[in-house]
């Protein structure tokens, strides 16, 4: 735990917690503009959150602590990831947690908490959402781990900081087939994990097609606010990871103000750029039928597997 890590951790925390609603706002705005609408402005998600936090929470009868704790777990896991992952600085506040597997598992833990909450309500929609979410995560998890594996193999470490640092030192890697394959696979995974089109429609109102939304139908007020906030933060974290694993430049490697500032700026720019790309892309897509989603995920799994195999074979001292 060094100074850089601690400062970075604080900065990342603030950035992600405060900035993620804005990211969602930007993405919605982009989408609105592309659809010919005016849009509610990038501050709208913050307004929503503020309102939700003021409202009362509702506990449906027959639900348990799981229902009440789930949003908390969801936010907590995301915040921990936001603090330890290398977004602004390569060093981590808690280095022994900044492991790729740990980060992935933490994010999955949040999803699991939400799925359990969905099941806990005992409504058909809750169960349906949980079932679908778990199906997706069961397929996403392997892709995620294998793409990470592809990235880690050549570095010889799964520590996020180490991977980022090594890419910084050897920029040629970014355009290697391994990176490209892994990147594509990761993009698909992130789309699935964050519930974006074409896997899930974040703005759907039709129960039969919902995934994420179905699980949280019973949440209201403060709880809902936390869930929404966590979703935004997860999106930010995933995009940040994607950005820094493949294009780490600009990240702070030293604890000087200039470097940190550059790190913050680079992070914001990269994430916003990715967000804009993502939401722009969504305009062109329709939601896949639920049972076509596995095909997409299987495809991404294949890509990640290819990436790993490539990383092994390319590293062969033939």
């Amino acid at each position, binding site marked *: 735990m060094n100074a850089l890590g601690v400062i970075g951790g604080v900065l990342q925390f603030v950035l992600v917690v405060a900035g993620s609603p804005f990211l969602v706002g930007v993405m919605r705005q982009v989408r609105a503009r592309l659809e010919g609408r005016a849009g509610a402005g990038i501050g709208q998600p913050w307004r929503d959150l503020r309102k939700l*936090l*003021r*409202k009362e929470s*509702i*506990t*449906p*009868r*027959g639900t348990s602590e799981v229902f009440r704790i789930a949003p908390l777990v969801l*936010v907590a*896991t995301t915040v*921990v990831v936001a603090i330890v992952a290398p977004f602004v600085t390569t060093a981590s506040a808690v*280095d*022994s*947690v900044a*492991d790729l*597997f*740990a980060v992935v598992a933490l994010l999955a833990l949040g999803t*699991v908490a939400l*799925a*359990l909450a*969905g*099941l*806990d*309500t*005992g*409504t*058909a929609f*809750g*169960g*349906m959402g*949980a*079932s679908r979410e*778990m199906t997706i*995560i*069961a397929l*996403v*998890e*392997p892709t*995620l*781990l*294998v793409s990470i*594996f592809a990235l880690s193999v050549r570095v*010889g*470490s*799964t*520590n996020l900081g*180490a991977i980022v640092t090594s890419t910084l030192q050897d920029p040629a890697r970014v355009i290697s087939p391994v990176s490209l394959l892994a990147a594509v696979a990761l993009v698909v995974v992130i789309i699935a994990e964050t519930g974006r089109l074409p896997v899930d429609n974040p703005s759907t109102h039709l129960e039969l097609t919902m995934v994420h939304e179905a699980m949280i139908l*019973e949440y209201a*007020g*403060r709880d809902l*606010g*936390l869930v929404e906030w966590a979703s935004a933060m997860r999106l930010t974290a995933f995009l940040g990871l994607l950005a820094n694993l493949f294009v780490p430049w600009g990240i702070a490697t030293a604890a000087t103000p200039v470097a940190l500032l550059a790190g913050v700026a680079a992070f914001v720019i990269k994430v916003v750029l990715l967000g804009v790309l993502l939401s722009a892309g969504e305009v062109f897509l329709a939601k896949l039928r639920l*049972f076509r989603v*596995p095909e997409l995920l299987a495809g991404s799994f294949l890509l990640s*597997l290819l990436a790993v*195999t490539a990383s*092994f*074979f390319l*590293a*062969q001292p033939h």
Partner: protein
Amino acid sequence: MNLVHAGLGAAVAVGVLSALLALITPRRLRLVPVGVGTVLVGAFGVLAGAVAVAGQAYSVEIPALLPLFGVSFAVDALSGLFLVVTGGVAIAVAVYGIGYARHGLDGRGVQAVLPLFVLAMLLVPAAASVGTFLVCWELMALTSLVLVLAEHQQRDTVAVAGRWYAVMTHLGMVAILIGLLVLVAHSADDSFPALRAAATNLSPVVANVVFVLTLVGFTSKAGILPLHAWLPRAHPEAPSHVSALMSAAMVNLGIYGIARVGFDLLGGGPRWWWLLVLVLGALSAVYGILQAAMSSDLKRLLGNSTTENMGLVLVGVGAAGLFASAGDDVLAGVALSAALLHVINHAAFKTLLFLSAGSVLHATGSRDLDALGGLRAGMPVTTWGFGLGALAASALPPGTAFVSEWLLLQALIHGLPASGAATAIVMPVAVAAVALTAGLAVATFVKAFGVGFLARPRSSAAANATESPVSMLAGMGLAAVACVTLALVPSVVLPAVGSASTMTLGTAQPAVSGQVTLQLNGVAGALSPLLLTVALLVVSVVLVGAVRLIAARRARRTARLWDCGAGPLSPRMEYTATSFAEPLQRVFDDVVQPEQDIDVTHHQESSYLVQAVEYRQRVPDRLERRLYEPVLRLITAWGSVARRLATGSVHRYLGYGFYTVCGLLILLVVIR
């Protein structure tokens, strides 16, 4: 004084004594002494194992026992580790059993056999000669068979399960027997040191035969593909605490056998052995968890998950062998440590899960998830226990399996330097398998916990469930404590894992060390489950505070479920385990091949009017269909054809003799 000796001796004495006690005491007074006795057997096992792991070697020979052979025991670090695991599981199970057995399992036979089963499992890793090993192995099979059959009068399926178990376990036994005897045939006698010595100049063919045969036997005990068929049958049908013993302790001994024979007795071996092990492990892991994900029988699900976890352990063992054969001791150490740690972790959480499942079964009389639900209200402790176990089993932090799977992945990731073409293909596939397993495990255990314990009751039995008696809860509590400890501070077992793996592989230093943070020695890699958990907790606390601070202080309100404004939701509207698994089942349609059956009953008046539609679906074990059924058909055909050998005609019978004698005489004339 040698504590290993004392521990083992005491375990044997107490075990036999409590068995006798069970036979002579009246039903009413039987349970507590047997329970306490079994706890003591377990505790002495743990003591002996712990001392052995700490470095005190021990061996003894008793020529008077076991005619023709004599028995000899020796405990080293590897044995010690398995002693500790078995003993630990036995303690929790025995405490639990006192309360659990009160409901029809307090028969003389079952109660007498329970401590003996534990004892047999303790003696297997302690055995130091082929004869001793096999006798303990078979005692374990016999005692477990009796226990599996304990409830045969209640359900017909028990007998079926027992048959499968008996036959499969005997199959494994025969394979092990042949394998080990081939080895014995090339050595001075049947003691392990002699075998070790003989293995150094064994011809590769013989070594291969020995390894493959013993592998067949040991994998059948560990529930590894394709010899797993007994496991999802026997584990659900056995009484739950016995399932826990079998699933958490007995299957481990299959792993022990592979490690003992492969690494210790045969001293490593060629690369393809371990590739085979790894591939078997990976296949089992995926197949096991896939079956578990499809299962709506709580205990069958847990049984399938055992196949999965043993598969993961085998991936570790296989990787260790692969690295060792490539000369990379450090990675071999990491992989083996991962495997051993996973053995320990699995033992802890599977005990907890089976005990909780037993508690549910005991309270509701059902293990069908589709008929459960809402148990948290009536059975809060059990719910917590199962939840904890499910968290651990799904390999998510802060659960136990997360740590060992992390370690396993670390070993695989660093496999690059040791790579050849085969490794380069196998490693990614292995990682993919582990990853897929992890993903499916999450879905599986969310299903088990969410459908079984959360939501609303789907049957009156589930609605009226009440919490189990204290002794059962205490047993679950012990397992839960072990789970939490292993999840947060795995470093408590690291020395044991380290010394066992260094001993087994003959390496210099343990591969994993650390107090708070697990640190790999020799390669980069660190993880701190404790810090991770603390971070989560701190953030949660801060969060709660922050939310209190910024959010309006509106009180939480309880409201009726949102039922779209229509009437109340009935339990039949809930998602069941089957419906939960349906999307996954569709995804893996080609692998699991579910069987569907639709019966449409028409009205009598007109065939256009439908009276009822009945839909049935089951997910069969496809491997069983493809592999076992042809064999069974063949054997049945053999049996019916062979009946013509004995038609009852005395002439035919005499003819057998006449032709044989004439044939032999001609042969004698010819070969003169």
